[in-house]
């Protein structure tokens, strides 16, 4: 049985207007209600890194928010580990696109957010320290988020998420807004982290190369109302290289085409 099961998931956002905006296409906007996700059925295995691609505004973030339990689906169900998701839980930690750290807490306090239940101070300290070191931020424990660079802030968020040892890690565009080198390093770190911990991880990204390099599985959504256009397991050896791997290269061109760019740039 797969770790995450999404069955016939549909999401409609209610608008304020009740008449259709586009008479010729009442399906898309019935009233001003926006059909975002249309009958999505997916299944992911335990420990997989799943990369989700799709055009902007197609509902990728919405899908992740529903899986995390922040929003109820309009129809259908999401199961994580057999349990139907109905509310947020510390077993599925969401890593926000940006600005998810509490600015009034230091790096140390932020990483310790999910460890509040640990009574023993020494164990707790050790645990926090372990994850701060994992993202190489020792010596920055007492810094406030605004004193860190964008990349460092992302690493703190990653550490905070991993520290609670969740079953599922959900990342919404974890590399957006980072410069090229930081992006590459972060990507490598996330891949290494995943190799090491083998935690089920969902990553939404705009970057096709990110998805192909990182993912054990790739999902491409169509434009709104979005449906699954492609779901493909990536059984390519790591580290991956487009030049040495014609199969990967071919898939890349296919996906570019699928997303509306007729040639791989």
């Amino acid at each position, binding site marked *: 049985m797969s770790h995450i099961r999404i069955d016939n998931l549909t999401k409609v956002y209610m608008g304020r207007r009740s008449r259709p905006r586009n008479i010729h296409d009442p399906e898309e906007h019935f009233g001003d209600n926006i059909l975002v996700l249309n009958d999505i059925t997916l299944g992911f295995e335990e420990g997989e890194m799943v990369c989700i691609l799709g055009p902007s505004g197609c509902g990728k973030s919405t899908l992740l928010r529903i899986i995390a339990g922040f929003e109820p689906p309009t129809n259908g169900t999401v199961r994580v580990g057999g349990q139907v998701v109905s509310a*947020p*839980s510390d077993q599925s930690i969401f890593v926000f696109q940006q600005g998810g750290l509490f600015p*009034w807490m230091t790096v140390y306090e932020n990483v310790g*957010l999910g460890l*509040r239940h640990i009574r023993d101070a020494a164990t707790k300290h050790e645990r926090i320290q372990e994850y701060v070191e994992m993202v190489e931020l020792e010596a920055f424990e007492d810094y406030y988020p605004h004193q860190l660079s964008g990349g460092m802030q992302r690493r703190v968020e990653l550490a905070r998420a991993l520290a*609670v040892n969740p079953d599922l890690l959900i990342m919404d565009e974890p590399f957006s807004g980072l410069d090229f080198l930081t992006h590459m390093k972060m990507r490598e770190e996330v891949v290494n982290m995943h190799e090491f911990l083998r935690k089920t991880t969902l990553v939404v990204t705009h970057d096709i190369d990110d998805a192909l390099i990182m993912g054990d599985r790739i999902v491409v959504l169509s434009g709104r109302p979005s449906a699954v256009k492609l779901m493909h397991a990536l059984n390519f050896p790591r580290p991956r290289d487009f030049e040495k791997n014609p199969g990967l290269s071919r898939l890349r061109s296919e996906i570019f085409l699928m997303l509306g760019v007729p040639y791989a740039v």
Partner: protein
Amino acid sequence: MKQHNDGEPTMKDNPEQAPDSGNRSLRLGLLSLLVIILLWEVLARGTGWSVHIFPDPLTVVFSFVELLRDGTLLRHTVASLFRVTAGFYLAVCLGVPIGIVLGRSVNARSLFNPIIQFLRPISPLAWIPLAMLWFGIGDPPAIFLIFLASFFPMVVSTTIAVQNINPTYFQVAANFRFSYQETLTRLILPAIIPDVVTALRMTVTIAWLVVVAAEMIAVQSGLGYLILDARNALRMDYVMNGMIVIGVIGLLLDNIMKRLGDVESSKWGIQAR
């Protein structure tokens, strides 16, 4: 070296330097004060008005010392400060929690916002007749008026501060399974502190404005009463003394609140948002 056109500025032409600017603005401030006192002296002499109508600086200084010696000034200042503190404290203790509830609950907002928005623009001074009828003479009506003057600004600023909290933080809180109490102490309170400190600073000024007015009607002590009493005795020098003390204390109150703001903003800077 290449010759530049005449009049083209070079890099090192930068005469204004910063290091001494704090000292300098203080010196300029003192200078302007001196000029005003001089002008006052000139006016007092030039107009030829009697000292009972327009006292000169020296007369005011002498009567100031006199009022300071016999303890009148201290007594009235303490009375005013007590009222402001009591009214302001009550307003903050009630206003901030109510603001938090209004900021968090749409229902509470729909229920109470109309009343608050209706009462808010009514000057606290318009409440004077009712305050005197309900609370009689003495401290209570004055404290009530100061409370009214500070309560609405505190509620409104706190409500806005809570509504402005980044919604992502509440999702993080839900994700890490915060209890209601933790959401309050670890999220809402720290998030609104900078805004609330700013509101405190604005509001204490309003409270200080109102105390003087309140003391002119309902009580027999305080700086407002001192001014009223001095006017009845035609002692304009005492009136001026009252005004000077009010000004100085207003300045001090503002300064204390500003310090408070500096402490907090240095903790999790404004630049963080």
